[in-house]
Structures are given as C-alpha cells and as structure tokens.
C-alpha cells in the first residue's frame, strides 16, 4: 500500500546515515575483508629496522653493569641503544614527572622495565638478541602489594581527602554500623592489537611516527622531548587501533619514543611492536584496590554516615594514577546520596609496572566499593539489596532542588538523576521480583548448584576531571565536487567514533554519509589535542566537527542568499539539496560556485565543554558536565563443590541520551558489560613473590570467551535525552556500561549467600574465580555453623 505518489529519485526525503541512524562501523567492510590497515600492516619502507626491548628481570635493583657483547654478536643485530644515546630527555611520563624513563639507568623499579633496545633486521633477530645481554643487578627490597605499601607508607603523594558533612558524628550516632574491607584485582587491557609504532625519518631531522595510540599529541610530545626536537618536527598519525580501552592513552609513548630514537640515530625507518608477553610485562594495567569502609545506617538501610579509605596500587611511577585515584573517589557514591561522608585515597607506590588508564579510569573501583556496602547493609538488615539501593538514590531529576538529597561528596548538585525511574523500568522488564523469589525457591531444592541475582545501577560522571582537557578541534574540507573530507582530534579504537562524527557532518550538510570521507588522526591536521578518553570522544569531537560544518554552511548560505536574491535565513539544507529562496542547489553545485566566487571551503571547528570547574585543593566544584546512567540485572549460578560459576541471564537498560547511532551504542554497552564482568570474574592477574607477572599471556590470563556470554542477554536504550546541550543531546557511552558488570560479581555474591541461608554477607572479593567463590562458600559455611 502506498498512500503518496512515489517521489522522484532525485529528491530524497531523508539522507542515508544521518544522526540516529544505526549505520555499521565505518570500517566494517574493511574489517571483515581483512583490508583495514593497522600500524603493523603499513607496508614497511625498505631497510626498516625491527626493535625489541631488553627488560629488567628484577623488581627493584641497582643495575651495576650492562654487557652487550653477545647482543652485538648475534645474527641480524644493527645497533643497541641505551639511555646514553638519548639526545633529549630520558622520560616519557605523560605528566612531566620525569619518572618514566625510556631506558632505566642505575635503578630498575619493576620487573619488565625497559633497559635498552636492540635494532635488528628482523623482529625475531631483535627478540633473540635482546635476551643475550648480561645484566648485573644488586637487589633491593621490593614493595609489591597494596598491603605492603600501606604498611610501609610507600605513597606517590600525600593521601587526598574530600567529603561533606560530619561522618564521625553521624557514625557515632547511627543505629546500625558496619565495617568491612573490599578487595578487587587489576585488569589487563588485552587489546587484540598490541602496542606498536613505526617511525620514519624525514628531512631536517623531522620524524613521522605511526603509532597505535589514543593520544597522538602526547606521542608527539614524548618523541620531541626524547629527541630534543620542537613539537613541529614530529608528526604522529593513527588511522585506527585494534582496541585501546585506555591502555593506549599513555602506554604508546615508550614504543613510539624508542622507534623514533632508532630512526633518528640510524636514519632508517624503525618499528617496535611488542610481543604479547612483553606487552603484558611492560605496560600498565587497571589499578587493583583495597577499600575499607565504615558505614552507619538506619533501619530502612538509609546511609547516615560513611567513610572510605581507598588504597590503590599505582606501581613504580605516577603515569595517570593521580587522576585515576581521584575518579575512584568521585565514584565512591555511585547513585547514592551520602549526607556525611569522607573519602580518603592512598596512592601506593610499588615495585610493579606503573598502572594506567583503563575504561572507567578508577570509577569502577570506587563504584564496586559502595555496591559491596549496599550488599552488606542488606545482609545485616535482611532486606533485598535493591530496596537498600532505592532508599539511598539521589533525588530525581526535577525534584532535586530543595530535596536536601542531591549534593555529591565533591559539592556538585546532581540535577539530572534518572536512576530511580530507570531502575523501576528495568525491574519491570526484567521480572526481577518474581525471578528473585523463584531463585530462592530453586536454591532450596538444589544442594550443589546455587543461583543468585543482582541489580546494580550506574551513574558515571562525564568530562575529564582535569578541566583543561575538555576541548577539541576538527578540520573539514568541502571539495569542489561536493565531497567532504573530515578530520578531528579523536582517535578510532573500535568504538565507532569516526562514524558518529561523520554522521554529525552528514546531518549538518544533509548529504549521505558516503559523501563524508573519514581520515586518519594526525597531529599536523588538528593540533594540541586531548586523548580520546574519558568517554568524551563523540561529545567533544562531534561538537568541534559540527562547528566546522556550520562555519562552511554559513559561508555557503551567505553566498547562495546573494545568488538567489534572498536572506541568509531563507537558505535551508534539506536532504540532498540546498534551498535558497526559489532556487535549489546541490552540494556539488554550491561548492563549485563558492570556489568560483573565491570563498573558502575549508574550516576548523573548536569546542570547549561549558559549565565545568574543579578546585582540587578545596575538593569543591563541578567536575562533570553531566552523568550517564544505566542499570543491569544479572542472574548467575555457582557450583558449591568447585566454585565454578557462570552468568545465566542479563538484562540491561542504559542511558545514551538521544543516541547518535543506536547500533554502535548497543555494541558499546554489550562489550562494556562483558569486559566489566570479565574484570570481576575470570580475569586474574597473578604476580609471583619476585614481582614477576605470572599471567603474562592469554594462556594464563583469561578474558571472557564466546560461551561466557550469558545465554539470555536483553539490552535496551533508555528513551530520554541529555538535559545538557551536548551533540544532538546524546550521551557518552564508552565507559559507563563497563560498570554494569558489577552486577555479575554481586549475583555470584547472592548465590554464595544462599549457602548460609541468606543469613550473612558473602563478602565475595574480585575477581571471583572458582577459587574465590569456593573459599567464600567455605568461609560462609564456617561462619554460619559458628552462629
């Protein structure tokens, strides 16, 4: 049935691939065809040297002597480089702390630290030779764990505290009080594409570096510092990464700097790609945390006062640990109003690899802490943890003013809280109440297998907490054939950023998405960029690209208004056409005409996030532009004889605002959830007593596999839009869904609690490997037996 006459093909009613369209990833065709080019796939220029790093085999030691005679003698070796060969600064610290040497000198501070580099004619030759160096160490005492660091007061900086109210008085007066300790492990990024950089020397000592990085500008700075060059002598390019997850925010600095050093010193192109085991040992991971809490609450489970002591293993240097630990503090409240709260953060310095950014950036650890508190309160009061959670939610959007329940521990008023509404809807669609009762009945009849269920909410603050980083640039060219060339400072690591920003540009020009060429991120196109991190990619770069598009559109509109003898306001971009008064132009016609009229068809665009500010000294401000919300219900089962466990069903409702691309956003939600669940269940990092990582490859470090996905998985997007003026009222979606995975841990916790007849807190730490689950079952049985 057709109720209108078909329109001529030349006047489309809507464009293909505009904002809100579930277009596939821009490189999907190339991905499946194997033609997408990653850094290691770039054809190597003739004479390219391959580099391997020589790594420390001590956690903490003086380096007394380095002898390279066997290295030099090895087949294929061209040169060996140490700190003495560095013309500039021997440091790749992302924050200028001079504590991340390219090559350690005199002292090694973690097992796997870079000591020297071997350049050879093949990667295999370089790897073989790098193991032949003779290194004489003199061991020093090593501090490896959070506990050891806390005992020794080994910190990167003084502890940092913020909060509101009077927690000590509130705790003393509270009718109920609980103290507990929560531990959670770190996490290896396991991007499928390891760290890699290819440096190509140019004229005048310039160098171009192809790097798999989330932060090309920082690669540029690191290379320039190490080579003693001005920034304008270094160009960095990245078309795409094979995964990043925060692991390529700073960790690409070292391989890029070393590749550039070898290129500068030899005059030959040079590539450094870590073998997977090296990648595990050399690069930082998610911080493992120990969180102590002391909470006071009323009979309804409402928190009256609480203190948190968060201790994080930062490793041997600062890297981004200060900001990560800050974000853990910013998320210690999750969705809950804490009227009297003090959060103290300890940044532990240890002789382990320097931990770094990982999707969520400390937020997941802070959030997991308070979610365990919710479980403990519920166990104590014999309530459904969901009831305790609801009792503590921040005041809802529209009801926050005067509620007295909307102030965060960092003195920001929460005005956009939708978690109550969102939770209600998820409880309904997931059948939570009925299923929870059913599970308890089932457990009573199943002596060995036990099931558990948990609903956990997420509120995640969007913006870099370092306010100056919240800016972005774009560069847009309109060519005379009407095709568009888009560039911006964001990087593509699989999250679909390039496609989303291209959809914004297509929407602005009302042209098909295929008309927008997506190009590699380069420091010589858009300078001084922030990393693609903090979920900010589409918020910042989408706005910058829209600004660039609107500048060009305005120039076209002004020109076409003159051409058509009408007002600028009467020029409209409609699907496939530009209407100017009575005249109609195609984009190619308008572009050609503008060129003929000598009007610029190229523009930059720039965006800086409004409203945000943060004063770290006073612990007050508005560090976040807005919050992204979500909630998940996970049902899991455990085997009480072995501790084996698995997810059975997951229901997710997540807030991406008005989605720029629902297909991409749902992909982020599902992938984020599974990654979060992996962090808290199968993914266990184990170090031996000498500080060597024992789990340094996928044979021993287990990320979720295909069958770990729950057999039933329902995901939906929340229907609301962002109340702040973001790009088309969308919300950032990169990190928040990872924290939905906390429900996977707590569902196991609920299953464990069943063995004690739900009479006690399972207090299940993460990662909940079979061993941890079984030991928690044993401990609970013992506690219950002891009464």
């Amino acid at each position, binding site marked *: 049935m057709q109720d209108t006459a078909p329109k001529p093909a030349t006047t489309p009613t809507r464009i293909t691939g505009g904002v809100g369209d579930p277009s596939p990833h821009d490189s999907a065709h190339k991905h499946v065809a194997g033609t997408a080019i990653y850094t290691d796939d770039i054809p190597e220029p003739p004479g390219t040297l391959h580099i391997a790093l020589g790594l420390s085999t001590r956690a903490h030691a003086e380096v007394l002597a380095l002898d390279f005679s066997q290295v030099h003698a090895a087949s294929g070796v061209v040169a060996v480089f140490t700190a003495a060969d560095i013309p500039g600064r021997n440091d790749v610290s992302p924050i200028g702390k001079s504590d991340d040497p390219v090559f350690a000198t005199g002292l090694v501070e973690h097992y796997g630290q870079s000591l020297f580099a071997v350049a050879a004619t093949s990667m295999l030759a370089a790897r073989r030779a790098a193991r032949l160096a003779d290194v004489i160490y003199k061991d020093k005492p090593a501090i490896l764990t959070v506990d050891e660091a806390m005992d020794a007061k080994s910190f990167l900086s003084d502890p940092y505290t913020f909060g509101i109210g009077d927690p000590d008085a509130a705790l003393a007066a509270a009718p109920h009080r609980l103290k507990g300790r929560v531990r959670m492990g770190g996490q290896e990024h396991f991007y499928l594409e390891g760290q890699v950089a290819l440096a190509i020397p140019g004229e005048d000592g310039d160098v171009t570096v192809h790097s798999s990085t989330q932060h090309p500008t920082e690669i540029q700075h690191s290379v320039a510092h190490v080579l003693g060059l001005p920034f304008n002598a270094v160009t960095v390019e990245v078309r795409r990464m094979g995964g990043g997850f925060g692991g390529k925010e700073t960790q690409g600095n070292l391989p890029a700097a070393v590749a550039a050093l070898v290129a500068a010193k030899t005059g030959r192109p040079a590539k450094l790609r870590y073998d997977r085991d090296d990648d595990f040992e050399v690069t930082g991971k998610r911080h493992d945390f120990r969180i102590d809490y002391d909470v006071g609450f009323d009979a309804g489970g409402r928190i009256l006062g609480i203190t948190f002591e968060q201790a994080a293993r930062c490793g041997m240097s600062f890297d981004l640990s200060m900001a990560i630990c800050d974000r853990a503090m910013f998320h210690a409240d999750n969705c809950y109003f804490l009227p009297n709260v003090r959060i103290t953060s300890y940044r532990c310095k240890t002789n382990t690899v320097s931990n770094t950014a990982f999707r969520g950036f400390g937020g997941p650890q802070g959030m997991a802490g308070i979610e365990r508190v919710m479980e403990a309160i519920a166990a104590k009061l014999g309530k459904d943890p969901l009831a305790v959670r609801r009792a503590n939610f921040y005041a809802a959007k529209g009801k926050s003013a005067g509620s007295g329940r909307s102030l965060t521990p960092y003195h920001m008023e929460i005005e956009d809280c939708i978690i109550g509404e969102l939770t209600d809807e998820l409880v309904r669609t997931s059948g939570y109440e009925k299923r929870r009762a059913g599970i308890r009945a089932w457990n009573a009849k199943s002596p060995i297998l036990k099931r558990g269920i948990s609903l956990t909410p997420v509120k995640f603050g969007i913006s870099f907490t370092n306010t100056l980083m919240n800016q972005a640039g774009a560069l847009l060219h309109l060519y005379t054939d009407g095709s568009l060339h888009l560039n911006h400072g964001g990087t593509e690591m*699989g999250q679909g950023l390039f496609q989303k920003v291209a959809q914004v540009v297509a929407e602005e020009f009302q042209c098909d998405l295929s008309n927008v060429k997506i190009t590699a991120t380069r420091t010589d196109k858009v300078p001084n960029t922030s990393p693609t991190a903090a979920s900010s990619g589409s918020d910042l770069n989408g706005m910058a690209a829209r600004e660039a598009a609107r500048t060009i559109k305005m120039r076209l509109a002004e020109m076409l208004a003159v051409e058509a003898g009408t007002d600028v306001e009467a020029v409209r971009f409609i699907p496939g056409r530009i209407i100017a008064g009575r005249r109609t132009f195609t984009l190619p016609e308008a572009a050609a005409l503008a060129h003929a009229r000598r009007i610029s068809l190229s523009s930059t665009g720039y965006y800086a996030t409004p409203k945000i500010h943060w004063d770290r000294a006073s612990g007050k401000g508005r560090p976040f532009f807005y919050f992204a919300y979500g909630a998940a219900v996970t049902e899991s089962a455990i085997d009480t004889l072995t501790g084996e466990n698995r997810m059975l069903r997951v229901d997710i409702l997540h807030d991406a605002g008005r989605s720029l691309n629902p297909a991409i956003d749902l992909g982020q939600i599902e992938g984020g959830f599974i990654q979060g669940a992996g962090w808290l269940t199968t993914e266990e990092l184990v170090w031996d007593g000498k500080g060597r990582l024992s789990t340094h490859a996928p044979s021993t470090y287990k990320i979720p596999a*295909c069958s*770990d996905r729950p*057999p039933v998985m329902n995901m939906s997007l929340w229907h609301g839009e962002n109340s702040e003026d973001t790009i088309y009222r969308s919300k950032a979606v990169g990190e928040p869904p990872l924290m939905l995975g906390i429900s996977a841990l707590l569902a196991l916790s609920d299953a464990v609690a069943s063995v004690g007849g739900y009479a006690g807190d399972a207090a299940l730490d993460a990662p909940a490997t*079979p061993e941890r689950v*079984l030991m928690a079952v044993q401990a609970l049985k013992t506690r219950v037996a002891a009464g």
Partner: protein
Amino acid sequence: MAATRDYVVFLLNGERHEVPRSVPPTRTLLEYLREDLGLKGTKEGCNEGDCGACTVVVMEPEQRSTLAVNACILLVPMLDGKSVTTVDGLFGPSGELHPCQQAMLECHGSQCGFCTPGFVMSLFAMYQDVMEYHDGKPPTKKWINTVLAGNLCRCTGYGSIVAAAERMFALPRPEWDVSRQAVNEFRAIGLRSKASLAVKNANGQFYAPLALVELIELRRIQPDSIILGGATDVCLWANKQLRPLPILISTARVGELQQFSHGVGRMRIGAAVTYEAAWSTLEMVWPNLGELIRRLGSEQVRNSGTIGGNIANGSPIGDMPPALMALGSTLVLNGPEGQRRMPLEEFFLAYGKQDRKPGEFVEAVEVPSHETGDRRLRCYKISKRFDQDISAVLGCFYLHIDNGVVTSARIAFGGMAGIPNRAKAVEAALEGKPWTMATVEAALPKFEEDFQPLSDARASKEYRMLTAKNLLVRYFHEMTSDVQTRLVGDGERIIAEVMA
C-alpha cells in the same frame, strides 16, 4: 625407502604456491604470510594459539573437512600438500563478500576489527563444513560457542558475532563459492604427493616421512630430533622461548600413526590422530570424554593437536592422560630398538621426564573399550574459564559398582602433581566397599596421601586439594542421584531452565 621431495608446495587461496627453499623450516605460517608474502589480513594477537586472530582455513580433501587453524602455531612445511585459505582470499570474483563476511557486517560483528579476520575465518570454516560436508542446517548456539571458543574478542561481548554465525546460513550461498570450493578440492587433490618430505637448508631440517619404518630410521640417525604432531606446543618453544629447533620430524603423514581403529574390546589411537579426528568416536563411547575434548584447547587447537602429542610431551596439565589412565590405557612406544608397551601411567616418571629411550617415540595408545555410551567415566575439568583454558585440576573417575559394592576404581588427576597421576590411596579406600556417602567421606582424607599439589597462577594448593576431594563427592552424586551438578556440558540442565 619412498621417494622424497625437498621443497614445500601448497595451495594458497586457490593457487599453487611453492615455498622458496631458503625459507627456514621453523618459519610459522603467520610470519610467512605477513612478512614474506605481504598478506596482512591475517593478524598476530598473541603468537601462541590462544586468541585466534591469525586463524586461517586448511582443507584436506581426503578428510572431507575444512579446518580452522592458528597460523602462528603452524610451521610452513606442515602445510605441504594442503589447501590454505586466508581472509585475503575470501572475495568473490567481483570483490563480493562471502556470506560469513556479509553476515558479520550486517550484524555489527566488528568494532576495532583486529580480531575480525580470525572470526571470519572460523565462521568460513564452519560455513563450508556445514554446506559441503554436512546437511547445510544451521548449527545450534552451543555449537557456535564451541566453534568460536578459540577466537577472542575484547570489544563486542560476542553477541553480534554469534548473531552473524546464525545469519550467514540465512544468506544465499553464492554460485562462485560452490565452484571455488570444488576447484580448490580438485587442485588440492592434484597436489597430494606420494613422496615423503625432507626440507633442509642452512636454518634447519624438516622431515615428514610416510611410513613407520622411515620414521624409525630417521630417529635412529637423529635421536635428538624433535617430533612434531600438531606442533601446538612445540611452536611455543620457538615463538616464546626462542629455542632453536634444528631437526624436526613430523608424524602427521606417517600412515601407521594416522590409524584410528575401534575394534572389539580395544580402541587404538595412532599418535598422529588429531583430537578432531577422534572426537566423535570417543564421545560416542565415553560421553564425558567427549565433553572434556570439547573444552580442551579450541577448535583451532583440536584441528591441529594430536592425542599422541598430548601424551608424549609429558605435561602435568595435559588433559588426555588422566582420562586415558582412568580407562586403563596402554602406551605403545616404538623406536630403533623396537616396540614397547606399558601402562600409560608408567610412562610419566617425574616432572619433564618420561620413560623414553633414545630415538623412541609414541606410536599409539590403546584403550580398553567394551560398550558405547559408557557413563561410568566422568571427567571434571576445573579452570578459571570454561572454554579454552588450561586445567587447574582435572579429575577423571572410572568406577565399577556391582550390587552396591565398588568392584574397581580407577581415578586419575592432572594438575595435582608434577605428572598426571593415579589416586591410588583413594582407589584402595573405595575398592571392595559399599558405594555410599560414608565410604566416600572415609576416602576423602586419602587424597592427601596421593597428592601434594603446588600453588601457581591457576590455583592455590589448598583449592586444588579441596576441589579434588569435592570432585569425588560430585562423582558420587552423579552416579547415585538426579541432583544437578554441572554448569556446563554433560548433565547441564540449568541453561535450558533459564531459556524456558
């Protein structure tokens, strides 16, 4: 002795490909594709066969199967006479996508895209196998999970990829795919040589004899040579330990070692028989062993790896020896001094040490088998992740109960000692006793006589000991009641309940 050939030739994306004689025999297929041939579609993710990013498809026309394998743990000479398809060769004649690629695109199956070529090749292998050699019916979700267990994705959470695996069977099969498959098969058959392979250059030697006598002779001359089955472990010596492998002898084409027979009272598994080749028969006879094999390695590893290799390398955490020991298997060795037989458990002397004379090699393992569907054998694999993980503890139980009395008990464990070993004190505490929980409980402390496990990255010694004991409890429940004891595999009912 049969004729020999001194160069490697295989079919690469449908075209005859002769490997230059200068290529070191230890070069992996992945290195060869990417570095020597510039075929960059196949990715390196881990270089140890655990991530699947380098998956390619190998076809052996006589076996009527398309096999996904990891290119990072295959040496180039191992491909001699086979047909190899990489992601670079999937395009149709006018650049069309294959249904497995089209489905991945439609289902949003890629994010960063780096693992994608590997997934595409695993899907391609499944698609061709179902369409060519089976009934064309789409596989179950469970089977899809099993086929994809060897491909890791860090971005998607897998849902979109599983959707693609279902979707591809709903797409029309292009005519060019049918004809290309036929042409490849035809050409691959033409390539099959009756000569044994002897590749020698400055970088090493690689032999692939065709007959047992040839193998014995080679071992007599070169007793220090390294025997290759599927190379799923030996390649790690090269890739990770950077060990030189100067002389390699492949068992893969030795006719006698490829034999797999199931006669009255006895099954004989030649040392070169892959898990894949033996799986369905073993599953038919011992369903629990089938489930163990499903979780052993991955599709790619099972397609390459051999049961003989799993025994011969003597690993304390190999999954096959405990199961075969519980069944009372006999190991057949051969070598310059002739054939020897021994109970399998006697082969493992100590960590890293086996009862093997110079030049000796594993010829076969013989397993007593009297009936099909023997559910008395239970294999319990405990690991952090269900699929594609190395066991922290592997317990295999095989008890005979007659009139409520334990008439024989064979219990073997992996991960509990430096070698796979029997739990003889536990067995003794069960034999001759009534099959009751009281007997089980009385036997539990005996585990501490049998084993003193170690702590490592997979589990603590305390967990290993507690779990080993609990597995006997599980066995008792499974043999005597209808209580649910399994989250995965044989006996798993919980998933069906949730789906319903």
